[in-house]
């Protein structure tokens, strides 16, 4: 049994298709990242899996349970950090952990959990006096109380300082090492690359790419290319004297040669040398996940600029 099986999941709000028929599975012990621009449908999708929202269509199985119908059972086994985590104003993180432990009827050492998420210093501060990052860490601490086998972390590191972010990465790596399954959303692609075994990029309620980040880069990226600083004449010369594809970026004064084989770079450079013309810096480059993400997401945005303006505005109200 896979911890998560989602098939043709749909959720709409009026005319807006917040989640538009997505399917994916997550394996046990896997860290799965959901990426996508604001309003893509990540939180909606996650909350459906947590049993907090009812779906309009499709099948969802989480730890073998229907999250909406068997939510109470499911909640014993999962840990959740909601986006925009809040808690009782006059309660301290330490008291919150003890409260959760009582509710889940488990024994925990609150100080150990606080240490784990780097929150010992604010253990006795009322929640409404905590900084944004400290609140977020409280959320993470609470999600750990019931030692869940599956965790949903909705933007766990948004608004954290770099140090705290790394601390949370460590916690997540630790959980992964213990074999926990984790679903994570983030807007930081480096974070996704650092932590996630596989990612899905969502846009307008659909999954537009899925796989390891290497797979996504390979499938949707432009591949490796050679860039030579030089004139357009040089570009034409190389084109004429090799059977390579040669593009020229006039604005940056760059000759761009996509490489089918790495050895092609040698032919290109030999031609450049032969030409007797001047040329500057050379480098080989490959699309990063960022490049692919921007291409996938903005490409879709250009096509449906009008329809998409609205939901994004609505979020910002």
């Amino acid at each position: 049994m896979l911890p998560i099986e989602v098939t043709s999941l749909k959720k709409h709000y009026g005319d807006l298709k917040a989640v538009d028929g997505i399917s994916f599975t997550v394996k046990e012990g896997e860290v799965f990242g959901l990426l996508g621009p604001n309003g893509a449908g990540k939180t909606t999708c996650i909350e459906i899996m947590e049993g907090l929202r009812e779906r309009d269509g499709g099948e969802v199985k989480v730890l073998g349970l229907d999250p909406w119908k068997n939510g109470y059972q499911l909640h014993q086994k999962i840990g959740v950090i909601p986006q925009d985590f809040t808690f009782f104003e006059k309660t301290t993180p330490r008291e919150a952990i003890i409260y959760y432990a009582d509710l889940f009827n488990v024994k925990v050492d609150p100080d150990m959990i606080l240490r784990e998420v780097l929150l010992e210093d604010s253990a006795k501060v009322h929640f409404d006096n905590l900084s944004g990052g400290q609140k977020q860490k409280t959320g993470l601490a609470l999600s750990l109380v019931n030692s869940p086998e599956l965790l949903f972390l909705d933007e766990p590191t948004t608004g954290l300082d770099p140090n705290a972010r790394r601390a949370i990465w460590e916690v997540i790596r630790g959980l992964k090492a213990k074999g926990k399954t984790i679903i994570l959303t983030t807007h930081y692609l480096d974070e996704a690359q650092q932590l996630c075994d596989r990612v899905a990029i969502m846009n307008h309620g659909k999954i537009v790419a899925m796989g390891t980040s290497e797979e996504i880069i390979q499938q949707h990226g432009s591949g490796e290319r050679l860039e030579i600083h030089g004139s357009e004449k040089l570009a034409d010369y190389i084109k004429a004297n090799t059977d390579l594809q040669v593009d020229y970026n006039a604005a940056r004064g760059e000759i761009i040669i996509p490489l089918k084989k790495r050895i092609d770079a040698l032919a290109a450079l030999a031609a450049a040398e032969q030409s007797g013309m001047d040329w500057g810096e050379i480098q080989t480059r490959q699309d990063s996940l960022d490049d692919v993400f921007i291409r996938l997401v903005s490409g879709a945005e250009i096509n449906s600029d009008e329809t998409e303006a609205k939901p994004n505005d609505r979020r910002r109200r």
Partner: protein
Amino acid sequence: MVSGKRIFSDFKVFSRGYLRNKFGLFFGLIFPVILILIFGAIFSGGSSGTVNVYAQNQDTGPFASPQMDIASKFLTALNDSGTIKVITVDASENFSQYLADHSSSDGIIIPANFSANYLAGRQVNMTVYGNPASSSSGIVSGTVNGYANYFNLNYFQRKYSDTTPAIIGITSATVNTQQTNYIDFLIPGLIGFSILTSPMFSLVNISSEYKKTKLFKQLSLTPLTKIEWLTSKVIWYIVLTIAGFLLMVGVGVFAFGAHVNLAIGLIPFLILGPMLFAALGMLVGTVTKSPETAGVIGNIVTFPMMFLAGTFFPISTMPAYLQTFAHVLPLFYIVEGLNNVMVYGNIPGALIDMAVVLVITAVIFVAAVKLFKWRED
């Protein structure tokens, strides 16, 4: 299903948060006491509470023993009656001038040799000043007459029947006629007022805020259930209500000499009341979309009850149509029940009120739990 342990841990967290928030504590406990002090002070000068009386004691003795100083004993007895407060005036003053200077019409002069004459069985007259148009003068002359009678009877009883016991029924209570004063009525009313306002406003606010900030969603991810959550709030407001009850009764009795009949019959009202209004507040917070609308609806539901359910004035003083209206307000039955127990000692009447409150509470509680959603659809 329902776990006492979870209710208790939620109760701990909630009550601690409540106590840390000075605002809630003020409205829950201090505010009703302030209301009692204000209303008690306003209305006790008239037909209820203590009346100031100036007394000039011209009987300066000499007394063979302090026991023989009947004049002082008489004034002490008056002062202890709870109805009037004796302010002594020096024997050298011109008494009527003194009263005028102090804008008072109530006074007593005890003549010289009063004690000696009394002990000798000789008639002796004291002078009671008063204004026939003022209700306070009526209280003064009534009380003084009562004590004079008492002292007279006491004299004869000692003189002629050394061996027979005291004449039954002749005690100081004859003077302290058990009339119901405004303060007696005000205490149950204000207890009702705080039973209504404290849980109601709080639950309207919490339930709509928690919905907005998604705290309910968050709690739904724990094993805590809706019933447990609501129950822990109800328990807290019962605790608060009982604390408020003791405070208010204490202040009423000690500051204003209120007559309060404390009976077991009060307890159901002190338990059902907070339960009813906590659930009603929850219901309002649940059926409304935003904290703002919840606040407005909450006020619409609460305000008529605050004033028309017999809290500040007996509904018998209201026009007939308002009296009819009062009978649809849940708080009315709580206040009436409290009055029946605390003021009139009318237990059968209170039982009927109790039954009505029980039914309303059950309906509202069930409705609140049923309609209340942790999660959205």
